[in-house]
């Protein structure tokens, strides 16, 4: 297996010759000293921004997109390896260091391969073209007579050869990326498309891997934050003497409502944070959770986004022979990272360096500079892998906390959030509410679809930093929940369709994007309602979808799903009356109506008495175009299915009028081993197509597939995630009365 990676000497050589990058302290001050004198280009149109080749032949890939645990570090390596014809083991990846990597945008939206990887592929193709031209000159051969193997260029005729290291080692390419540089024919891929084992797994299973939580600097202190007991409370007083007896206490820091402690040891910081006495004002600005959906419906609408409008849906509804309507909602969710967020910050000579697991180090750099009114050029953020984040979790906030504490004590500070900080203060996937109506004519054809979505306004951008707001420092004022109106429009060709997103002026808890933001919630509402409409039309739900799709890749996928899952056509639920019932449901998504296709069939087992739902099995068929690493894709799909089964059955952030009350894994339970379903996957590989995202799309189909399976099993509709036993019991009871 290809797990060999460059050794440290080679890596230093690579980074030392051309540029310098990785500044984990273990690589020593020589590297740091060079980075100060050799600024490396990070311009998005320069080959040197992405690639460097040392005289040893070692290739360094500089990626602005980062490994969040999804395997993209290995997949990006495969792309470069194939395009350059270099073994993957001879490629090192540097990720997310703002001083050395190009700003390729946040690592989000299932775009790392689709966008970032394609940029990197073009940079590699440009590099290869230049290397072959130079080799041709040196070997006296025409470009067409050259072959490359393992980073060595050979002339077919006389067999003379020269290595990439000899051609470029020690020099910059000094080339703009050529969008016309020829890409390798996919038929000739040797590494792309192969299930190459991930490079990061061996160190992760032996404890050798360095997560941000393990990262240390010489002289580093430990910090903890003390958050307000109520989200909007004001700090009235702090009794510093309450922590006088904590060994190694360095300082209590308060600025506005930002409160934190710094100590020599981590345990000292924890003890100080626990013991520190402070008084806060009362604040009860959150709505009553029991009336959340009334609150959402009553929230001021700042604007309407019409996400699709065909024909006249309202008029067609009025004239329809049969109408179906339903309201769906999806609870507030947490990212639920296993490792609470952590960061390290250091000020030196008026400059700030912050080590963070942020999915957006380039943007975080600008946020931190704005918070402290520093010049952007005086701030560097260096990516270090963290616990999986599944969107914008607390990593950036922990970074801001570390920065404020480090500034206050003049030494490097590591801030590690506690479990309650992560569950309580990570930004949340906002509550989602959708009203849906459909109309059918006398012969069961759908004539109208009309949906109204209620979600907070805002899109991607940057999520405000908790520390900046608490400390009264500059921060972003708007909400950034992600592009959560995606997939509110539908893929089906009904003659009259109107889908409107009412964008709300506020939402109870600071919002951000969680995996498949909006796409997951909206697809739940749409695809569960499609099942309702199919029943109203007297049609098999899978046949119904096929009938209304005008998209050959979509119909290919659904037909393949029907075979793969051995779907038995049906026109009504087979609801049995025993205590335990089984059922199956299907769902479909074309992600953002623009890319990756996923179809699902879920099998559930229901206990009518307890209301418990067991998801036994999920079958997934996915078409994401060209697949870089099929095992990596399968790993992501399995993960998406299991995480989303967890979200669908169990998860809901709870809160009172003052603060989040689901602060641990007991109050915010997630799926456990005995509860996980089996997952079977059929990948429709299309090697000559574009590589589309795989990180999120298969999340989108899971909640509706389960909802539809529940209906198949027991004849009731669950329209509110999570599908708790209490909700199912209530639905069964109201159906029987």
């Amino acid at each position, binding site marked *: 297996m290809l797990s060999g990676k460059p050794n440290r000497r080679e890596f230093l050589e690579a980074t030392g010759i051309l540029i310098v990058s990785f500044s984990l302290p273990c690589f020593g001050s020589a590297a740091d000293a060079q980075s100060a004198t050799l600024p490396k280009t990070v311009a998005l149109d320069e080959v040197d921004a992405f690639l460097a080749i040392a005289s040893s032949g070692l290739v360094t890939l500089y990626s602005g997109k980062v490994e*969040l645990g999804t395997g993209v570090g290995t997949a990006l390596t495969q792309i470069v390896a194939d395009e350059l014809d270099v073994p993957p083991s001879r490629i090192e990846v540097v990720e997310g260091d703002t001083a050395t990597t190009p700003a390729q945008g946040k690592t989000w939206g299932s775009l790392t391969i689709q966008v970032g990887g394609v940029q990197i592929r073009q940079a590699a193709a440009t590099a290869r073209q230049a290397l072959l031209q130079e080799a041709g000159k040196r070997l006296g051969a025409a470009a067409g007579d050259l072959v490359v193997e393992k980073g060595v260029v050979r002339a077919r005729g006389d067999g003379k050869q020269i290595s990439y290291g000899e051609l470029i080692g020690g020099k910059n390419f000094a080339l703009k990326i050529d969008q016309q540089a020829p890409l390798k024919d996919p038929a000739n891929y040797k590494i792309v498309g192969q299930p190459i084992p991930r490079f990061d797994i061996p160190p992760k299973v032996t404890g050798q891997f360095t997560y941000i*939580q393990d990262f240390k600097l010489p002289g580093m202190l430990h910090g903890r934050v003390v958050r307000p007991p109520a989200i909007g409370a004001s700090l009235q007083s702090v009794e510093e003497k309450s922590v006088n007896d904590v060994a190694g206490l360095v300082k209590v820091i308060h600025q506005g409502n930002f409160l934190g402690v710094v100590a020599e040891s981590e345990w000292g910081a924890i003890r100080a944070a626990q013991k520190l006495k402070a008084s806060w004002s009362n604040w009860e600005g959150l709505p009553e959770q029991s009336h959340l959906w009334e609150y959402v419906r009553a929230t001021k609408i700042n604007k309407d986004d019409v996400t699709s409008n065909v024909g006249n849906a309202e008029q067609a509804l009025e004239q329809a022979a049969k109408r179906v309507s339903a309201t769906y909602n999806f609870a507030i969710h947490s990212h639920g990272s296993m490792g609470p967020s952590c960061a390290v910050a250091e000020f030196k000579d008026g400059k700030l360096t912050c080590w963070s697991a942020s999915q957006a180090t380039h943007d975080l750099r600008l946020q931190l500079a704005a918070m402290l009114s520093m010049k952007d050029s005086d701030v560097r953020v260096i990516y270090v892998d963290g616990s999986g984040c599944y969107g914008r979790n607390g990593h950036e906030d922990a970074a801001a906390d570390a920065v404020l504490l480090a500034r206050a004590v003049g030494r490097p500070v590591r801030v590690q959030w506690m479990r309650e900080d992560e569950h309580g203060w990570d930004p949340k996937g906002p509550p989602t509410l959708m009203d849906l109506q459909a109309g059918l004519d006398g012969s069961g054809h759908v004539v109208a679809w009309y949906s109204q979505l209620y979600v907070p306004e805002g899109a991607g951008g940057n999520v405000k930093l908790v520390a900046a707001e608490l400390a009264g420092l500059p921060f972003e004022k708007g909400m950034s929940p992600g592009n959560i109106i995606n997939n509110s429009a539908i893929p089906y060709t009904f003659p009259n369709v109107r889908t409107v997103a009412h964008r709300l002026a506020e939402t109870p808890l600071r919002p951000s994007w969680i995996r498949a933001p909006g796409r997951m919630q909206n697809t739940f509402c749409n695809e569960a309602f499609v099942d309702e409409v199919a029943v109203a039309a007297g049609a098999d739900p899978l046949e119904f979808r096929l009938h209304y799709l005008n998209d050959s890749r979509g119909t290919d996928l659904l037909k393949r799903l029907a075979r793969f899952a051995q779907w038995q056509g049906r026109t009504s639920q087979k609801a049995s009356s025993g205590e335990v019932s089984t059922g199956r449901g299907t769902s479909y998504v074309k992600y953002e109506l623009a890319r990756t296709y996923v179809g699902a069939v879920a099998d559930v087992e229901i206990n009518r008495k307890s209301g418990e739902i067991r998801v036994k099995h999920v079958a997934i068929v996915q078409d994401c175009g060209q697949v870089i690493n099929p095992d990596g894709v399968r790993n992501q799909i399995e993960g998406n299915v299991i995480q989303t089964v967890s979200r669908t059955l169990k998860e809901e952030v709870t809160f009172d009028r003052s603060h989040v009350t689901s602060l641990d894994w007991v109050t915010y339970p997630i799926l456990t081993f005995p509860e996980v379903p089996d997952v079977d996957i059929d990948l429709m590989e299309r090697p000559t197509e574009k590589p589309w995202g795989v990180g999120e799309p298969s999340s989108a189909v899971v909640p509706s597939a389960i909802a539809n399976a529940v209906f198949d099993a027991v004849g009731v509709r669950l329209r509110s995630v999570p599908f708790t036993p209490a909700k199912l019991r209530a639905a069964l009871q109201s159906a029987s009365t």
Partner: protein
Amino acid sequence: MPLLYALRDNLGLHGPRFGCGLGQCGACTVHIEGNAARSCVTPLSAVGKKKVVTLEGLGSPQKLVALQEAFITEQAAQCGFCIGGMIMEAAAFLAHNKSPSEAQIKQALAHNLCRCGTHLRIVRAVKRAAAAA
């Protein structure tokens, strides 16, 4: 002070990880006298002279134990933050149950949480390791 901080901060070990500090997630799992224990809620004072083994003590990159090899073969990790705890829990379990059923493996890991959804691969890895032993 809990054992976890002695292992991580005083001894510089990365195998045991801080996940919750509440004994709820299993990321901090180590062996104490061969039994899986949550080091985040085990007071250092309760450890005394008992033998503590962390992930690093199980096997090294140069000399992997069967479980670690099986996790690599099955590619049983995503972010990997929970994986050390999974391996330690599974190792203690396999020491007592040489040929477990899938249901027994799932039950043995019922109190170890994974957020990436790598459960199926973890179960396959534990089965593989059991078969290899």
